[in-house]
């Protein structure tokens, strides 16, 4: 145990699957990079090898906690998983995250991170019981679904074990696969990395403690906890209720504060009727979010919602524990219960064509969610299902699939919105080539869109790509729907970059839209250009969807980043430096949270439900927590600087992995539909989220200036890297001719 600091456990575990060697090293090496994502990016920088694929033996995968996880700090139980990602063009590095109770358990066992390297000849799982760390045979677990894997390992270790595992998706090297832990928590994109290493699961029991700095008293911890509870809202920091409540001055449908009159935990053994959930009632905090409302509609939710759930130390509880008896009776699943959130429910629904609320949608979401999770499949924030739905609507599968495969798929079921379709659909994706017939559908969807398109976003003949034909034929698809008619590209070759329903946002990475221009104009657009996958950033969402009136939000935004930082949604003004500062701030906080590891769905707390505080929150909570837990007195700015170090490293590593000195033209590029949609409207008109080509270029100029990146290339300059103690990074990039002059 390292006695110098609170928070950090003190050790990083290195597991070499090729040699079977398991070693311990000190976490202090990584303190400048905070923890979590910072450890992941540093390890991947230090071990960079040119041109390797995500599933190559040389690739490493880092599972990391931060100094706050397990300390009891509110919402501090996220786990970051960092590795090269096969869903991204060039298999660039990404970080995915899951919640639950895994990272606290890792800390209780005495570790801040696990570095997984090499490749085992046979399936294994990693067993961690405090100091006892062993690799165990997993032959009998290979092929087993995630839920039974959790059960089997828990039976061997004891049910208090926290387990992370991959499902058949990861084992079958399906790129769109996840790593999951109990309670419906999954991290996207890296399942196949563990699959390629033949590591099925990790089980942890930690009986130790997360020590808090000796200088910190219990009273201080409780006082900060109370301070946070005094300003925290609901999920995404919605700080006003979704519907009017007597105590609230405002209400807003953008707020995720959905718990209130009319909401019932109807599937609970004794149904719980919520009534009002006043902001200062600390024993109703966990009732505020009630997300089942938004996924299932009130009527269905009131029948099937049992209770909210979520991560260690979080009072908010954004997960939904759902009980749908039909899962067992009609769909023959072993359970009638499922817990999940967000795309876990929405992806099946998107895939089936977005039916409206009601029993059919409930069945699709619960049954589909079960298969997705049990197989360990990743939606890539809906990209998987957007492709399925859009290609079905355009009748593309009929053209793209061999006739016998097309005929074997039960399209009548699909058209009927019959949830039985979900079994075959997700099985095709999870089992790839080993599923019956040619399975072009499943193999394509599982592999990631970037493999199947040319530079213009037009599709190749799918089988040629899957069979690695040297010069693949084009698929020859065209825009031919009636709804395409008012677009100029009607009749043109179909391109995924033109199709606004498909939502490919970052054109160069082929990443999906996620709280980008649809949420915060250029601010959202900019932060979605920098990351290799969507940044999963809610820093901006926590302000703009808080539910307060626009004028109040604009006032807060102006005080933080200057005038004009925030436009009303769907009514955007031209780019300005305040927006560039706002975008940078969002990313820095995002990286901070992924390093600490805190929940970026909850923090930062810029606003609060407290009218007495003029609805203001406190953006320095993270540094207050960090100072108390570690004992290292750190200001908000100092901690943000540490996070920015990680962000700069993220960019530099992307340059190194792409071996590409021009990020501006080859990474930070948006898909065409972002500029071309709503042909009857111009950028800036009310009601459109369309961006303007020149304005986005101005945006990049301003954003690069804020980040200290070279204007022409978008690569961090030596001065910037040195400012963040990354001189060694500058040296390496310079040696390779990748640093701007």
């Amino acid at each position, binding site marked *: 145990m390292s006695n110098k600091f609170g928070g950090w456990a003190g050790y990083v575990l290195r597991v070499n699957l090729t040699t079977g060697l398991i070693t311990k090293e000190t976490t202090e090496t990584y303190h400048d990079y905070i923890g979590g994502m910072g450890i992941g990016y540093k390890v991947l920088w230090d071990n960079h090898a040119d041109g390797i694929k995500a599933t190559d033996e040389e690739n490493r995968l880092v599972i990391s906690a931060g100094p706050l996880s397990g300390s009891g700090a509110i919402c501090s139980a996220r786990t970051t998983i960092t590795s090269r990602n096969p869903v991204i063009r060039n298999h660039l590095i990404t970080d995915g995250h899951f919640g639950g*109770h895994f990272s606290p358990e890792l800390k209780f066992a005495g570790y801040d991170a696990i570095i997984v390297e090499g490749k085992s000849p046979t399936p294994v799982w990693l067993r961690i019981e405090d100091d006892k760390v062993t690799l165990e045979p997993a032959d009998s677990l290979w092929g087993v679904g995630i839920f039974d894997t959790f059960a089997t390992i828990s*039976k061997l270790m004891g049910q*208090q074990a926290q387990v992370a595992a991959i499902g058949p998706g990861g084992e079958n090297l399906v790129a769109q696969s996840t790593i999951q832990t109990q309670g419906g928590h999954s991290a996207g994109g890296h399942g196949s990395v563990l699959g390629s290493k033949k590591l099925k699961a990790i089980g942890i029991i930690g009986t130790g403690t997360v020590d808090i700095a000796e200088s910190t008293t219990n009273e201080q911890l409780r006082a900060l906890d109370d301070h946070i509870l005094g300003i925290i809202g609901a999920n995404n920091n919605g700080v006003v209720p979704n519907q009017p409540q007597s105590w609230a001055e405002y209400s807003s449908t953008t707020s995720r504060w959905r718990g209130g009159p009319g909401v019932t935990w109807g599937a609970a053994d004794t149904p719980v009727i919520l009534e009002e959930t006043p902001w200062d009632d600390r024993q109703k905090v966990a009732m505020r979010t009630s997300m089942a409302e938004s996924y299932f509609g009130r009527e269905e939710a009131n029948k099937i919602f049992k209770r909210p759930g979520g991560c260690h130390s979080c009072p908010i509880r954004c997960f939904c524990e759902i009980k749908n008896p039909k899962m067992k009776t009609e769909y023959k699943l072993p359970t009638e219960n499922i817990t999940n959130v967000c795309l876990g429910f929405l992806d099946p629904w998107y895939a089936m064509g977005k039916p409206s609320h009601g029993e059919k949608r409930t069945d699709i979401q619960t049954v589909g969610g079960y298969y997705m999770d049990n197989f360990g499949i990743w939606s890539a924030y809906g990209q998987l299902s957007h492709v399925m739905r859009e290609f079905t609507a355009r009748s593309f599968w009929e053209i793209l699939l061999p006739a016998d495969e097309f005929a074997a798929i039960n399209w009548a079921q699909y058209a009927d919105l019959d949830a039985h379709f979900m079994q075959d659909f997700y099985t095709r994706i999870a089992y790839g080539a080993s599923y019956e017939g040619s399975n072009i559908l499943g193999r394509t969807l599982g592999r990631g869109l970037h493999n199947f398109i040319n530079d213009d976003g037009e599709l190749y003949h799918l089988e040629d790509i899957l069979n690695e034909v040297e010069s693949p034929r084009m698929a020859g698809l065209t825009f031919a729907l009636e709804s395409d008619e008012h677009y100029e590209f009607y009749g043109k070759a179909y391109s995924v970059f033109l199709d606004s329903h498909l939502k490919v946002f970052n054109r160069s990475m082929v990443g999906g839209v996620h709280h980008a221009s649809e949420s915060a104009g250029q601010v959202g657009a900019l932060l979605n250009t920098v990351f290799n996958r969507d940044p999963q950033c809610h820093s901006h969402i926590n302000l703009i969807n808080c539910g307060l009136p626009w004028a109040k939000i604009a006032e807060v935004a102006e005080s933080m980043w200057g005038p004009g930082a925030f436009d009303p949604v769907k009514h955007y003004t031209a780019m300005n430096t305040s927006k560039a500062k706002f975008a940078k701030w969002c990313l820095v906080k995002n990286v901070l949270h992924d390093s600490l590891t805190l929940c970026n769905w909850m923090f930062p707390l810029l606003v609060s439900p407290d009218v007495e505080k003029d609805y203001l929150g406190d953006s320095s909570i993270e540094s207050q927590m960090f100072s108390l837990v570690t004992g290292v007195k750190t200001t908000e700015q100092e901690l943000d600087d540490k996070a920015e170090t990680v962000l700069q490293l993220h960019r530099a590593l992307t340059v190194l992995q792409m071996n590409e000195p021009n990020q501006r033209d080859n990474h930070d590029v948006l898909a065409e539909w972002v500029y071309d949609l709503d042909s009857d409207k111009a950028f800036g008109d009310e009601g459109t989220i369309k961006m303007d080509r020149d304005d986005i270029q101005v945006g990049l100029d301003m954003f690069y200036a804020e980040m200290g990146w070279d204007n022409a290339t978008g690569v961090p300059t030596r001065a910037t890297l040195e400012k963040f103690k990354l001189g060694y990074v500058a040296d390496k990039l310079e040696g390779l001719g990748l640093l701007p002059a």
Partner: protein
Amino acid sequence: MITRRALLANGAKVAVGTVYYGTLVSFLTGCGSSSDDDTDTDKPIVEVLPGGLMVVNPVMCVGCRRCEIACSWSHGKSAVSPSTARIKVAKNLNFGPHGVQDNYEDQRGEQGDGTIVPSTCRQCDVCMTVCPQEAISINETTGARVVNDSLCVGCGYCADKCPQQVITIDKITRKSLKCDLCEGNPNCAQVCPTGAIKFYTWEDAVAEVELHEKYLALV
């Protein structure tokens, strides 16, 4: 034969200052009593003092473990761990009170029907009775059975015999860690975001314990 349920339904009241033994005690505390012979004085006894019991309502528990954390925070050194918390959520969080069963999908816990059944100390006298050092005594104000650290040698008898299995021995200090009701203002109850865990007077605790017992059985 008087069953537990019948006894309660008959309006059994628990009065402060009375010594109880037999069925009612075994029900309240869960300290094993299969017979209903109330004259068997080998059975655990409980002297009901002011204060009451911490009980968790499994319908309301959302598994956040903030109670465990607050308990760790408020006792001794600020080190957080399910091992040092006197309330236990982790040990039946995922698969329920009976561990992993073949039909785990139908049992309690996060991997079962989603019901979480934390265990709390029921302030019975078992630990006090079995302690060879007489290190456990009653706090007359709160009614809590409390450990005197200077007498405790960490032998672990109390932990072994605790009917709720909520006592642990601190790995480092080798002292018994037992719920002391935080001098009458339990931290765990203060931080619970649903009010699932509450401090009940003995009288009100009867109904809550009955509910809790229901969730301890195999489904």
